[in-house]
């Protein structure tokens, strides 16, 4: 391999060969710093980045939340959260150094004083460093505060900083309807430029999802068959065996479609269906994903019943234990109309995919936890073999499993040993875990670092979010307008029988 000499690389010549590229000195402000997400994910992720030496060489943290407490009390609380939730046992000297200068600003997010205090803190850190530090605002609050916070950041002149970058990281959900998403985009982009905005879909930070692109675009074997000529259907499943647990407050307002389909599952669909980008760069990848989303035939009020099914889990047995139905879960209204299962059939109206159905299904309290993409190829056009006395030849199926065991499996027809030519399907299986030594970093570690570095590849762009909502909004609207009760499925099973009506021809859902 050749190294480019200095005169051909006007960029920093010292970064060649480094696995971790420098991240410029940054002050990170977390809104909702005492909340569940911050405690369980963000603070442990920041610690692990510090442990590995991956944070910027100058890094400061400001937490903001409604609870009233001192800087020291926040540091103590953050340390406890890190000790409890970090994926590794913290090194106490690193933890102490990380939290040594942490600041905390209390107040409600509509209060001017909060932003005045944050600005004082930011300026003090700049002063200490002797240079303007990059600023990243992480909105880890309930979604109703997103427009308030971005508005206040704009009003207090915190969206731009001379000589440094300012970025806003916005958690999901980005709106709960198309209109809300558009309104939020409008508010955000009235104070920030799109390149400053990093909309989190933590699914994109998972190695497993990034591997879909590697699988497709780094292997010449699959591209020739990756189209309507060879593929019969695509099935994307995100099934959970757990119920809603203690999340009734959130979940009953969201439902399965908003919780998983509108964001994560449509992203998986994009990864399967997108054209290869010319370069692995944020906007090129996002351009290709938006093209896919725009090619999806949009549901209408008239077609929703034909292409979408919803249901709720009823009481049942999971792993030998009796579990309550959704309506019996604590905190769920007894007349709730919220779906815990959603299945939809989509078609992508473009040259590559026209006529190939994409089935997306997700649900809670299903038979097991699995996230996978199943691509079923068309059957062979002619078969010379007798199939008597065997399962027979089945169309090849390529399964990309995201969890629990990340891998790729291909079903093939193979001869059953014996004197007759009888065929049955067998699986050729590859498990990523057998070939890579390293554990995947937590998605949030990757995403926080990318946001501080300004790399938006794994974040959702404004038009992408809206295009996702354009697909889901008609279904949400129709379902909200329809009275219950919803079809029920027994907890611990494959889901509602009603989902079968979405399938075309003699297709059947792949067993969960």
């Amino acid at each position: 391999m050749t190294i480019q000499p200095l005169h051909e690389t006007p960029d920093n010549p010292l970064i060649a060969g480094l696995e971790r590229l420098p991240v410029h000195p940054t002050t990170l402000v977390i809104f909702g710093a005492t909340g569940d997400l911050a405690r369980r994910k963000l603070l442990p992720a920041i610690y692990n980045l510090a442990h590995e030496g991956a944070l910027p060489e100058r890094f400061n943290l400001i937490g903001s939340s409604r609870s009233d407490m001192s800087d020291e009390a926040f540091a103590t609380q953050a340390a406890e959260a890190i000790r409890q939730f970090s994926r590794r046992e913290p090194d106490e000297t690193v933890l102490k150094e990380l939290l040594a200068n942490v600041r905390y600003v209390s107040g409600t997010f509509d209060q001017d004083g909060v932003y005045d205090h944050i600005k004082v803190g930011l300026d003090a850190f700049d002063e200490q460093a002797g240079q303007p530090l990059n600023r990243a605002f992480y909105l880890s609050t309930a979604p109703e505060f997103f427009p308030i916070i971005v508005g206040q950041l704009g009003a207090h002149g915190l969206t731009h900083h001379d000589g440094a970058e300012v970025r806003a990281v916005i958690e999901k959900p980005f709106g709960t309807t198309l209109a809300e998403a558009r309104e939020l985009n409008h508010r955000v982009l009235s104070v920030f430029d799109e390149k400053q905005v990093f909309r989190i879909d933590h699914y994109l930070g998972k190695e497993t999802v990034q591997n879909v692109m590697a699988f497709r675009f780094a292997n010449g074997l699959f591209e020739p068959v990756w189209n309507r000529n060879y593929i019969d259907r695509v099935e994307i499943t995100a099934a959970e065996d757990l119920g809603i647990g203690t999340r009734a407050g959130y979940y009953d307002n969201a439902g399965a479609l908003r919780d998983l389909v509108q964001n994560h599952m449509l992203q998986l669909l994009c990864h399967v269906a997108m054209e290869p980008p010319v370069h692995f760069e944020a906007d090129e990848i996002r351009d290709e994903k938006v093209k896919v989303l725009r090619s999806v035939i949009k549901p209408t009020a008239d077609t929703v019943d034909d292409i979408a099914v919803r249901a709720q889990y009823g009481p049942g047995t999971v792993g030998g234990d009796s579990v309550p139905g959704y309506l019996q879960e604590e905190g769920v209204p007894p007349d709730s109309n919220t779906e815990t299962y959603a299945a939809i059939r989509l078609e992508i109206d473009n040259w590559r995919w026209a006529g190939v159905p994409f089935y997306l299904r997700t649900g809670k309290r299903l038979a097991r936890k699995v996230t996978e993409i199943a691509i079923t190829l068309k059957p062979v056009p002619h078969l010379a073999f007798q199939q008597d006395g065997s399962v027979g030849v089945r169309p090849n199926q390529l399964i990309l499993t995201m969890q629990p065991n990340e891998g790729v499996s291909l079903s093939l027809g193979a001869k059953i040993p014996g004197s007759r030519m009888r065929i049955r399907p067998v699986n050729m299986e590859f498990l990523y875990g057998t070939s890579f030594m390293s554990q995947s970093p937590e998605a949030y570690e990757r995403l926080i670092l990318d946001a501080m570095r300004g790399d938006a590849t794994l974040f959702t762009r404004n038009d992408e979010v809206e295009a996702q909502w354009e697909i889901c909004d008609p279904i949400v609207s129709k379902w909200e307008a329809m009275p219950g009760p919803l079809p029920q499925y027994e907890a611990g099973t494959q889901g509602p029988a009603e989902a079968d009506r979405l399938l075309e021809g003699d297709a059947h859902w792949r067993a969960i």
Partner: protein
Amino acid sequence: MPTIDTVWSARDTNPGDIDAALRAALSQIHHENTGYVPARVLNLICIVDKAYAGEVANRLRRVGRYHPSRTIVCSVEPGRTKLDAVATIAAPSEVRHGDIGLLRETVVVEVGDQHLQHLDRIVDPLVVTDLLTCVWSPHGHPEAVDSLLDLAQIVLIDSVDEPHPNDAIHRARELSKKVYVVDLAWLRSTPWRERIAATFDPEHLRPDLRTISSVTIRHHPDSAAAALLLIGWLASRLEWRTTPLMQGRSVWEGSAHARRQDVKIRLEPDPTLGVRGLAGLTLETASGRHFSLDRGPGGLRARYRHKRGTEREWTVLGASRGESGILGEGIRQALLRDPTYGPALEAAETLLP
């Protein structure tokens, strides 16, 4: 993680029998529980003196998650003429239904010094075909390493193991012409290289890279090779013309030639440093910036001073990886490629007195 070990052993055996025993054991373990699957990442061939085999085994046990999938330990016992072998397949003691349990294979072959010159004939049947193969010989035995160079794609070395840095750099250069070299001494310098790169990464500071006028590197008394690699890295990346350093009683000094000015170089041992590797470094620029990094609690302690009087100190966060962490990193790096090590090594060689 607790494991269940399947062990096979034989005296006066041969590689074909060892391979057959491994295959049979793998097949049986998988048959008993289909959740057990062999890891297929990397073959690691370790050549160790029998007297220190336990110590090396301990080091390998502590590498954390970066295990090779098949480890072949050639334990050298002077005078031995026959091969004895123990093959162990370690399986996690618990595999939940639907989950997978990765199997790791270790083969210890007792060899004599007479086998070393043609060690490839013994080892070749034992490596998993199509996987990358890495050789690590922490107790010397260069003839054994040389015999494996057609079989292996990677050699793991630690340049600070050689008593004299000149020998270390020459040997690394010689090997790197034939295979990919992963040098633990180089990996110990990664945080230092990252921080130097980060310091000059802001666009307004990049021009200062061309004005570096002095570099002092402080190192463990036995780690001059690590300091040479670091200065070699700077020289190769910044296109300095290098000439041999002068060796004093313990300090190496000299200069390199950048486009605009000479760069003073000083490599000095720090007897207070208790671990191998680098203790600190100081960079000065012609424009009056003075930047230093030293080991400190919770990371590296950075100091910045400007001739106009500005002075700042801060901690660059990061935990020590420890020697087992470094070895684990070496095994991980065997699967990657760092294009900057070779040029750094080449530049380091030109600095040798």
